[in-house]
């Protein structure tokens, strides 16, 4: 009797988590998928409309804006964070004396809430009191920087704040990668007379491929989820200029009472994330087993 209990205990222990996650994650995904095929407005409805919400969604101009903004934001965010992260990691890997002081400073923004980051940058970039005003006070009268109020450029201010927040983290990932490079390879190259710059370009940076991949996955998934930062920095504005899928979903579902369309936009977000995460997790776990 006792033995049988001991046999079942492990399953009993994971069962509650398993059931909770099954309901709160997978059950909820199915329910949202179901809602996306109904004509739910303010409240969930059971009237089936098939893929009509999706057709409507892709005809909406604000969804179009959200996707275009996500493309701009996502690409710049990923490229700049990776480039800056790698660059800083390489510099920090040159036997820097104060590394112990510099590294934590590069990384601390990751501990902050996006709302805090958004608030700081919102006023820092504000033409009235921020950087423009400061430059004028310092005597550079013609300095002009109003991107945060400018429909065509506001999305780039979101990139600036997001890069500030995440690039230090990418730096830490690359630094860990650089520290794992086998010294023998580098020594051999040095004996062959390769210069420092060439060693980096030809040997070390190509070795960083797995880190580039991890950084890409992390940053891409953060970009698709990006919500708080936009809310705090621009509120999605001016007008609709910094709308992203996440802000679109929230406003259509909760303030514009178009729950069916909101649900279909959430499903599109899920598809985007899963198409990045699932292959990655699959290959990572497979590699782990082979090792």
């Amino acid at each position, binding site marked *: 009797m006792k033995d049988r209990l001991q046999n079942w205990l492990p399953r009993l222990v994971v069962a509650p988590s398993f059931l909770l996650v099954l309901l709160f*994650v997978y059950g*909820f995904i199915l329910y949202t998928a179901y809602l996306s095929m109904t004509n739910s407005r303010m409240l969930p409805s059971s009237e089936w409309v098939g893929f009509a919400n999706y057709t409507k969604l892709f005809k909406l101009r604000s969804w179009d804006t959200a996707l275009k903004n996500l493309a701009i934001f996502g690409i710049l965010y990923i490229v700049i964070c990776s480039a800056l992260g790698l660059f800083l990691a390489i510099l920090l890997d040159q036997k820097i004396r104060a590394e112990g002081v510099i590294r934590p400073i590069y990384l601390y923004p990751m501990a902050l809430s996006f709302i805090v980051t958004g608030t700081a940058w919102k006023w820092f970039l504000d033409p009235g009191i921020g950087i423009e005003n400061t430059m004028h006070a*310092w005597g550079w009268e013609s300095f002009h920087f109003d991107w945060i109020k400018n429909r065509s450029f506001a999305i780039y201010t979101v990139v600036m704040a997001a890069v500030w927040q995440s690039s230090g983290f990418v730096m830490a990932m690359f630094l860990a990668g650089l520290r794992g490079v086998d010294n023998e390879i580098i020594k051999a190259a040095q004996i062959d007379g390769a210069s420092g710059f060439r060693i980096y370009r030809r040997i070390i940076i190509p070795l960083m491929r797995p880190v580039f991949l991890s950084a890409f996955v992390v940053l891409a998934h953060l970009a698709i989820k990006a919500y708080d930062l936009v809310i705090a920095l621009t509120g999605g504005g001016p007008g609709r200029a910094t709308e992203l899928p996440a802000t679109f979903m929230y406003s259509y579902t909760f303030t514009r009472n178009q729950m069916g369309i909101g649900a279909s936009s959430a499903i599109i977000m899920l598809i985007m994330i899963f198409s990045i995460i699932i292959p990655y997790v699959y290959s990572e776990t497979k590699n782990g087993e082979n090792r």
Partner: protein
Amino acid sequence: MSGVSQDNAVTGNRLTRALIYTVLIFFVIYYLLPLYVMVVNSLKPLDEIRGGNLMALPQNWSLQPWRDAWSAAQIGVEPTGLKPYFANSFKIVVPAVILSTIVGALNGYVLTKCRFRGANVVFALLLLSCFIPFQIVLIPAARILGLLGIAGTIKGLILIHFVYGIGFSTLFFRNYYAAFPTELIGAAQIDGATFFQIFTRILLPNSGPIIVVTVIWQFTNQWNDFLFGASFSGFDSTPMTVALNNLVNSSTGVKEYNVHFAGAILAALPTLFVYVVSGRYFVRGLMAGAVKG
């Protein structure tokens, strides 16, 4: 972290070294600048910000913005300051962190040391749940909280943070326990140790670092959460991030930048404190969360 890698360094002359240090210091300034702006301007009277220079040190130092942000600023209807919301965040985050850490530790134990059929499926589902965009669960979660009668309450938010924290906690503990020698556990079983004795006497005493990593990760994520707070909190359960955003973005009339900056620092203090005290573990959590299943 050091020692082995020393040979990566480009052996350059003094000029290159000077250049490297210059660039590194430039970026130190870049990362510190927003924090500097927040601190400096939270200590100025309002007219100094409006008429003056965001970079300048205060001429008349003042703690009034901090007092206002903490206990007098108008947030929503009441001029309560951020104090009650700060307390709300703690009331939500502390139980949720404890719960998801304990459950994650148990799951990690079971998934690595008691192989049973379907364990891989359970883990795959838990792992994938870490990465979903939470927009996908907002509508049904709001309904469930309503059905349970805990919509807009602290309890409701604890439940939500706990449930969506299980995945990462399990991931952390599973990866940690996977490296723990299974022979030790087998030996204990032969000696007659029960399931829970093995956990409390053998695994837990050796789990110090991973407990710290998990607690820090969960605390930082849950404290910084905005989406769940904005969606599911009510009148007296609003967390700090949502209150800060209300303070900054919906204030009618005069924009009190200095109070906003003080409020932003208040909202950042707990996670910054954790980072300063245990940065090493914070980074380990980030890395573990970023890579590997």
